[in-house]
């Protein structure tokens, strides 16, 4: 019993630490007034309304979704292909390649962004959402590769070989054997990339021009002056994605239960 109380107490305390700031943010998004401090007055929906009618914020939201989906698709595909290639065990220098592919994981986003900025600069290329997406694919590729590589066990390699022995071409093996076998890993890689890209600030800040992603737009909102829209857009994004995540979890729970 004491053990249970201890565990429950610790969980409660940490959940409070983890969830409270977001709760406070959501609460103050309903604050009737510009100052985000107690006492709470309201609730009002005017800041949420202001967000939903803000052309720039909505454009940024859409840009973020496009960049996240595009860069994650590229990262997942490249990561998947590389994981397959390395799983055959036929590559000389596989360890070095693996290390090289994982290297970006250990580098600050700031450094990756600055490096891309410097080289685009030297190459005389302009900035756009494309460059942001490239930056995001660089930070996500190692992640996708690692997730796919972990899923490419001997069973998958053997199943591929069997399919090939039965005369299946390379494309069919990949589409009909490998991909379905590691579908959960592919989905996990893609979704994780999406969240990382969706949330990423500094690379998007350094590599974008007129069209910006949501974190960059929120940043300029934050710099532009005390504005309760910041609270509202933060809580809207949070509530929407939290609902998706919780729905997915509950669906999984029910299927298993």
């Amino acid at each position, binding site marked *: 019993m004491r*053990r249970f109380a201890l565990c429950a107490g*610790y*969980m409660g305390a*940490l*959940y409070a*630490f*983890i*969830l409270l*700031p977001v709760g406070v*943010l959501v609460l*103050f998004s309903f604050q009737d007034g510009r100052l985000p*401090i*107690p006492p709470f007055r309201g609730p009002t929906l005017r800041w949420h309304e202001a967000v939903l009618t803000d052309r720039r914020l909505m454009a940024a939201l859409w840009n973020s979704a496009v960049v996240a989906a595009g860069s994650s698709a590229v990262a997942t595909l*490249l990561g998947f*292909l*590389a994981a*397959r*290639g*390395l799983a055959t065990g*036929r*590559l000389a220098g596989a360890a070095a390649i693996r290390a090289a*592919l994982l290297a*970006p994981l*250990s*580098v*600050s986003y*700031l*450094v*990756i962004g*600055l*490096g*891309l900025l*410097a*080289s685009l600069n030297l190459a005389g290329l302009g900035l756009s959402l494309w460059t942001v997406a*490239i930056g995001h*694919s*660089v930070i996500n*590729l190692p992640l996708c*590769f690692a997730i796919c590589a972990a899923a490419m066990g001997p069973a998958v390699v053997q199943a591929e070989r069997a399919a090939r022995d039965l005369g299946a071409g*390379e494309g069919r093996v990949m589409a009909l054997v490998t991909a379905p076998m590691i579908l959960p890993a592919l989905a996990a890689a893609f979704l994780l990339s999406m969240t990382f890209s*969706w*949330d990423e*600030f*500094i690379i998007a800040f*350094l590599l974008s021009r007129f069209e910006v992603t949501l974190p960059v737009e*929120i*940043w300029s909102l*934050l710099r532009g002056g005390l504005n309760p829209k*910041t*609270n509202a857009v*933060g809580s809207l*994004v*949070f509530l929407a*994605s939290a609902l998706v*995540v*919780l729905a997915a*979890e509950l669906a*999984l*729970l029910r299927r298993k*239960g």
Partner: protein
Amino acid sequence: MSLDAAEARRAWALTLPAVVWTVAFFVVPFMAMAALSLWQRTAAGLVPAWTLENYRAILGEPAAVRAILNSIEITLTVTALSVVLAFPLAWIIAEEVPPRWRRLALALAVLPFWTSYVVRSYAWSLMLARQGVLNGWLEGIGLPALDLANSRAATVIGFTHFFTMLLTLTIYASLTQLPPNLRRAAADLGAGPVATFHHVILPLTAPGIAVGAFLTFALCVGDYVTPQILGGGRDLAAAQLVMLNLGRRADIPMAAALSVCLMLLVTLAYLLLARFMRAPR
């Protein structure tokens, strides 16, 4: 042509795109940045001076050295705090929570991941403000108000919040890979809970902890947003200095040189942690 050669060629064809992508958009840019750090910013523009002058300037400017030291101190504090906070949580979720509820418990523990990163730091500034929510509660229960806003403490709290979530994930992942009968075996051999933890669980989860700690270090030492929003300009982190050079002085070479210094730090951290990251046999 042998079958082996064909298979090797196919393996290469599959791996090559990712390698090319990484080289083109990561290795080459990094080299470009390293090269640029040897240039000089002058009134006339950027000059390819090929000199170590920027590095000399960093080492010769106490404020710059201080900023790098600040970043190291903040990062070490955050990494230690996050590991200490996250391990018990990951443990409880992996071992004490009924299996049916585990995924939900884990999802709840990382829920704020899905707010925007910038907004998360901002939310902490609301929490910690002198007239903010936390102090409102403290006063409500008769405790003195805390003066945490706009300080290094605020930066550390904001970071710890994020990395506790991240480490809970990585540690949970390594805990679930422990064979469940291992602890029973240890108990059968007469090991108490402390001895089991020390001799069995810790060594086996060390790789997960080390990977998480390294990720924390790498992401934290180069982060700009959190100290910028929460630090209140009380002291300067290295990433803020990079952005000052980039934004206010248009001095990309100096920003690049500082970034190279940050990279060296991360490499050092990797070398120190690398031997823990390998799974023990």
